[in-house]
């Protein structure tokens, strides 16, 4: 953010503090542009950029009373953006950690093919609980025993997308069958 842009944003902050809602709208719109550029340069998964922009915008709205208009707006804004980015990275790490444990789910606990008592189900019944995308990914992973990389290549999804889709599918099955906590 250059000095001229920073000065413009600061003047809109002052006008917002005098109750000017239109200045506030201009301020937020301009900040969105700054945030988009910031996150586009730092985030590998471009589909996350807009989510990060929106979360940061909400933080800007909440924390604006703390901003000292005598100082530059840039450091204040980038500190918020950095905080949101770190939060998002932490969340992604948590998801990836859960996916690893989800992969150790005892598949046999979910499908009982050999002993067809009243709780036994076959593969088609299990997979029918899932969305088409989850069904495709999990069938390739668990039935065809393909690796995540191979599934990504076969389906055209990214590796992260395959992992997230599989994780959500396992969670659905875990909730439905009440299994899996002990398998983590």
């Amino acid at each position, binding site marked *: 953010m250059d000095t001229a842009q920073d000065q413009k944003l600061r003047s809109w902050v002052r006008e917002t503090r005098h109750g000017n809602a239109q200045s506030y709208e201009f301020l937020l719109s301009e900040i969105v542009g700054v945030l988009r550029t910031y996150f586009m340069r730092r985030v590998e998964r471009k589909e996350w950029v807009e989510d990060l922009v929106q979360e940061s915008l909400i933080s800007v709205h909440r924390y604006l009373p703390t901003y000292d208009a005598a100082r530059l707006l840039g450091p204040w804004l980038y500190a*918020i953006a950095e905080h949101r980015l770190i939060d998002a990275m932490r969340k992604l790490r948590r998801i990836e950690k859960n996916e690893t444990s989800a992969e150790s789910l005892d598949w046999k606990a979910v499908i009982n093919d050999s002993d067809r008592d009243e709780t036994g189900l076959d593969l088609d019944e299990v997979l029918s609980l899932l969305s088409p995308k989850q069904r495709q990914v999990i069938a390739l992973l668990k039935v065809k025993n393909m690796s995540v990389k191979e599934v990504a290549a076969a389906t055209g999804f990214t590796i992260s997308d395959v992992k997230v889709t599989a994780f959500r599918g396992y969670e659905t099955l875990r909730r439905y069958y009440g299994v899996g906590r002990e398998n983590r």
Partner: protein
Amino acid sequence: MDTRRYEDIMELAVKTDDLIKRLSESSLPSKALPSHSARCLRWMSGAMLCTFVGVALFGFRPDLHEQVFTPAFLIQAIFLAVASILSALSAFAFSVPGEGKPGRVGWMLSSILFWVLFLVVSIFTTGNFLSGVGLSCIRNIVVLGAIPGFALFMMIRAAAPLKIELTGVLGALAAAGLGALGTQFICKNYNPLHILLWHFVPVVFLGFLGALLGRLIYRNR
């Protein structure tokens, strides 16, 4: 391959425009908090008064008029005051995005380090290895620091502490440091080993506890 198609991305961008409209139509964030240094000054004035009243209630040490101008007493009082002020200033600075200064935290830590070095050197130069038991000193530090500590945590919560554990540690050190400074005016035992074990260690422990408090109090801020 991008898993989100162009249309999905455009839909999200439209949602951002919606969000802007909603935020600008909601209650405008028109109030500004005073600067972090002004808030810190406000806190320090109240906290010093509180500590003075607390010390008066506990009772000043009977040998205060003899000890107060000794180098050992003065040096420790200065270290404690500096550490407490710098901790408070840093905590308030870190409660505003982008204003925290790691350098100031370094000065605060140096102050604490000088205090412990001073004590260790004093122990060996005086050859005094008696510390006595100082549970009442821990009580005094906690009680004298409790109200200022509560006020500080609440004042910071009203701002935007992003580094919640660090801000918690700094806040706790500020309050505990003030408590230890007040305790110096109460505790009759000026043996350096006693001060190390029953004043310094509790302050450091309370500082670490501040990280937990920071997580609890600032988490959803």
